[in-house]
Structure formats: C-alpha cells, structure tokens
C-alpha cells in the first residue's frame, strides 16, 4: 500500500493504515515534498489534502479527518434512514421483518434506559438508541478486511498513496467528540436540574463535609472536594471516549498485524486467514459490547446529572 517511492515494509504498511485522510490548513511558507522529489513552497495559507505523515502532523488542529467524518456521517445516515423509514411505516398490528428487528432494538434500549434513568427527559432514550446503533455501525466497519476499502478508495481516486482509514471509532477525534458532547450535555443537565448553585455545591461539598459544629473544617475540605470532584467529572468523558477508542484501535491493530501475514507466503497466509476469521468472530462481541458500554455509561452520566442529593445538605 505504499507508494513507489517507499519500500513496502511492515512498518510502512501499519503506519499507512493508521493514518487518516487529512484535509487541513498548511501555513504560508510551508515547503511541500512532492512524490517526484521536487519541492513546492506555499505562498499563502492553503487548505489541502495531506500527502505525507509530516504534512498531516503539521496541519495541527486546523484539519479535518475526511474518512472519519465521512464514514461517521454515512453510517449515521444509514441508521437514521433505516429507523426513520421503519418508524414512518410502522403499524400497531403484527410487525414484520425489519420492523420487528427495529422494535427489538428500540425495546432493548428502552428497557436498559428505564432501568438506569428514572427521570423525565425526552432526550435520553433517543440519544441512547442513536449512540448504540451508530457506534455499533462504526465499530462494525472493523470487520471488513482492512485492505478492501482503502484499496477501493485508492483505485477510485487513482492515488496509490491515498490515506484511508475506514473505522471512525479508531480515531480518537470521533470517540472524544462524542464523549465531549455527552460531557457538555452532562453539565447542561446538571445546571438545569440543580441550578448553578446546586451544581457548585455538588462539586465543592462532596464527598467530605463537616457538620455545622465544626464548620471551620470545611475551609480545608472544600478545596480537597473541588479537586476530587473536578477530576472525577473530567475523567468521565475522557474515559468514555478513550475506552471506545482504545478497544477499537487495539482491535484494528491486530487485524492489521494479521493482514501482514498474507504477504508472508502461502502457509502463513492460511494461518492469517484462520486468525483473521477467529479474531473477527471474537471482535463481533467486542464491538457490540463497546457500543453497549458507551450507551450505558452515557445514560448513567445523564442519570447522575439529574440525581439530586436530597439527603445531604
């Protein structure tokens, strides 16, 4: 999968598979190294596709991972389209085919959310459904053999060096993006349900709080509480996003390593085929579980945002 200029090494193969298709801004005066060995100096800030790892890196924050966003959008649309079509045609009579399946999923999500979330909020259950289905679909892309879609993309674009990463959830931007959205919603509902004062009190007066007689102890305890609670609060979205990313990234990495075996002779190729099949079967469990965990944790965080500690203070 490397270009003619680079030797097809294992490292190169792996590295190539882990690089997103980056569309970003290169600053003025940036020197681009072309594939044919020439150099181009940019005269102005340019939005362009990164051709090398270095370029992708140099784009910094002002860059879009087109493959991540594209597949994420596409899979989200697949989910929305299917579920919306079923929802529009659904009849209360005997459900058939796709409607049964969709209702099965919806009921499963509904029950899970009802078990965890006991408040009234019209957003939580649909969000859980979206997360579960969307994350599952994005994870599912991991089961497609690692070279198929990048190969197809390279053939279609005619660029044999095109970076193309198929699984959006192996990009920390995707998982952390969702986690941060969940975090913002968490803060929003915290403030909406408890008020700004209640939320602040929760951050500063837990878990340690001295009784009224020893009020002066609170001067010491409040900073401790604040540090603890803030860390706990920040850790939630970070762990939520990184857990999904870590699991999918590791899974993808193993698929890539197995795929390396295919180029190492017929015997190892067969072994690789068996290994890939085995890992894919195991991975079906992982992708479903990770989607489920992401959904459950989101719901739990939302429930925590709504729960008020009426018993204390």
């Amino acid at each position, binding site marked *: 999968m490397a270009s003619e200029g680079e030797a097809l090494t294992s490292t190169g193969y792996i590295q190539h598979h882990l690089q997103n298709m980056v569309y970003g801004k290169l600053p003025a005066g940036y020197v681009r190294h072309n594939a044919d060995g020439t150099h181009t100096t940019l005269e102005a800030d340019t939005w362009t596709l990164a051709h090398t790892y270095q370029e992708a890196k140099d784009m910094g924050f002002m860059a879009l991972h087109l493959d991540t966003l594209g597949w994420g959008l596409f899979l989200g649309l697949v989910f929305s389209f299917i579920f919306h079509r079923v929802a529009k045609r659904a009849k209360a009579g005997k459900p058939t085919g796709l409607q049964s399946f969709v209702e099965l999923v919806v009921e499963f999500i509904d029950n899970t959310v009802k078990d965890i979330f006991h408040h009234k909020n019209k957003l939580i259950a649909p969000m859980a459904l979206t997360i579960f289905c969307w994350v599952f679909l994005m994870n599912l892309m991991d089961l497609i053999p690692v070279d198929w879609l990048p190969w197809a993309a390279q053939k279609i674009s005619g660029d044999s060096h095109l970076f193309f990463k198929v699984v959006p959830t192996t990009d920390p931007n995707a998982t952390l993006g969702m986690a941060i*959205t969940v975090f913002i919603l968490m803060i929003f509902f915290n403030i909406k349900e408890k008020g700004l004062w209640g939320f602040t009190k929760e951050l500063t007066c837990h878990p340690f709080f001295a009784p009224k007689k020893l009020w002066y102890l609170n001067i010491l305890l409040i900073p401790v509480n604040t540090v603890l609670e803030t860390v706990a609060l920040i850790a939630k979205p970070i762990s939520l996003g990184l857990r999904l990313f870590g699991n999918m990234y590791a899974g993808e990495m193993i698929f890539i390593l197995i795929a390396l075996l295919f180029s190492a002779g017929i015997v190892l190729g067969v072994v690789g085929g068996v290994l890939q099949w085995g890992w894919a079967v195991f991975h079906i469990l992982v992708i479903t579980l990770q989607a489920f965990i992401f959904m459950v944790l989101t719901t739990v965080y939302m429930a925590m945002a709504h729960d008020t500690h009426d018993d204390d203070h």
Partner: protein
Amino acid sequence: MSITLTLIGQSITFLAFVFFCMKFVWPALINVMQEREKRIADGLDAAEKADKDLELAKQRASEQLKEAKAKAAEIVEQANKRANQIIEEAKEQAVVEADRIKAAAQAEVDRSVSQAREELRGKVASLALVGAEKVLGASVDEKAHSDMLNKLAAEL
C-alpha cells in the same frame, strides 16, 4: 492521531443524529409499540371476559335445561293425572249411561208389562163376557154389564 477539528465535526454530527432520532424516529416507534401493547392487553382482557361470559352462559344454559326438564316432568305428570281423570270421568259417565239405559229398559219393560196387563185385562173382560154369554146363553146387555165388567177387570 492528533486532536483536530474532526472532534468538533463529530460532535456536531452526533448532535444532529441524536436530534433527528429524538424528533422523527423514537416517538413514532414508541407510540406504535405502546399502542400494540395496549391492543394486546385489550385483547387479553376481552378473551378473559369472553371466557367468563362463556362460563356464565354455560351455567345459564344448564339451569334452563334443568328448569325445562322439571317443567316437562310436571307437564307429563299433569297429563297423566288428566288422563286418569278423563278415564275416571268416562267410567263414571259409562256407569251413568248404563244406569240410564238400564232404567230406560226397565221402564220399557214395565210399560210393556202394564200394557200387556191392560190388554190381558181387556181381553179377560171380553172373554169373561163371552164366557158369561155362553154360560148364560143369553145375550147380555153389554151396556148394562160393562161397568161391572170393567170394575172386575180393574180389580184383576
């Protein structure tokens, strides 16, 4: 593998899908499912009610059957009684008729006897007269003696 604008892009996409799901997917599906649940519950209720109704109907039918049987038995009994009564009446009538016929016959006999007696009496009188004529050899004044003879006949 660096944090880029993608993060924000993914956040926006995520929110958009969640919003779409909340507005156009979830409520419709949940409504349909709740409606079906209600229908099933109603159906089960109806089935239970129908079962109860059936039980009641069976009970009523058996009651009515019992009643009908009792009534039938009563009617048969009444009919039997009536039949017996009719027979009794017929018997009585027959007896009365027989008595009547017997009485009529008796009256007829009596009438015949008395008639015969009258006839005989008349004949005796005339015979006696004839005999007396013959005995006396002379004609008897019929008119003179007829009263006496009649008295005699009456005495017979």
